[in-house]
């Protein structure tokens, strides 16, 4: 099915698809960067801050681009039209972006408070939470990319 879709995809879907995929790629990259920096910081304040700011300044815009372009694409492809059956792969995508978005936001808030606590010389527990959330998000993104690309029935 996806073979047919790939070959016959109308050209007017290409631009929103490009933005959606580019946003998602940068989102995955920034989440991996954040998890790596926080994971390997070993208390280094500079790396901890860098990990958080990467998620905020790179990850958040990428998340917004992914979500908005995805919505645009789904609308163009007619998945919201009446009588169009729900697709498993699309459902997975929405779950990951919406529930994942909530988790992403929690990670950002925890990380933001964590970075403020760093300035006062307090612990890094909240940034560890952000790192754990990033790892969970990465796993969810792998499932979403697999579903979006493979389009399981």
């Amino acid at each position: 099915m996806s073979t047919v879709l790939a070959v016959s995809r109308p050209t007017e879907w290409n631009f929103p698809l490009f933005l959606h995929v580019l946003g998602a790629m940068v989102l995955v990259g920034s989440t991996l960067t954040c998890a790596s920096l926080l994971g390997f910081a070993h208390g280094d304040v500079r790396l901890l801050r860098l990990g958080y700011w990467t998620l905020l300044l790179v990850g958040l815009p990428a998340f917004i681009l992914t979500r908005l372009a995805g919505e645009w694409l789904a609308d163009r492809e007619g998945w919201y039209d009446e009588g169009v059956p729900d697709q498993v792969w699309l459902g997975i995508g929405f779950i990951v972006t919406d529930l994942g978005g909530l988790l992403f936001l929690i990670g950002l808030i925890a990380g933001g408070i964590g970075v403020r606590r760093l300035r006062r010389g307090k612990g890094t527990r909240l940034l560890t939470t952000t790192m754990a959330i990033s790892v969970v998000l990465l796993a969810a993104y792998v499932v979403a990319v697999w579903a979006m690309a493979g389009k399981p029935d």
Partner: protein
Amino acid sequence: MSFDDWILALHVLSAFAFVAGMVIFWVLIVAVRRTDTPEGTIRMEPIVKVGNAAVGIGAGGTIVLGIWLAFSYGGYDIWDGWIIAAIVLWAIAAAVGQRTGNAYMQGMNKAQELQAAGQTGPNAELLALNRTQNGVLLHGLATVVVVLILIDMIWKPGA
């Protein structure tokens, strides 16, 4: 899902790993510009390894699985213009990426040298190596080439 659908999903996941690695290196390029101590530079090494792994898996997966798909998928052939363009662009990205790595490894090697010599303080030569303009330009070029591959994969000109 057919076998080819699985291969396609892994091909796309590889592309995500490739770009994720490039994002890691962009963040490190920005971070290392203000790093003038051996310790600060060496601390980046584990993250460099994550980036290298992501780019390695991504580059290998995209080319191997992509060529597999070109032969296996109905409607596409290896000699299609957009597939040849993607292979050429992939080769350029790989070559440029390798040169970028070499440019930034000079800073890492210098940091290890300084640390071995017991010099732990700020070092102007190390800062200059970490701020390599050549490295920034090469990584910028590699990024443009990867974006062109993505455009080629989505628009499939001539298909």
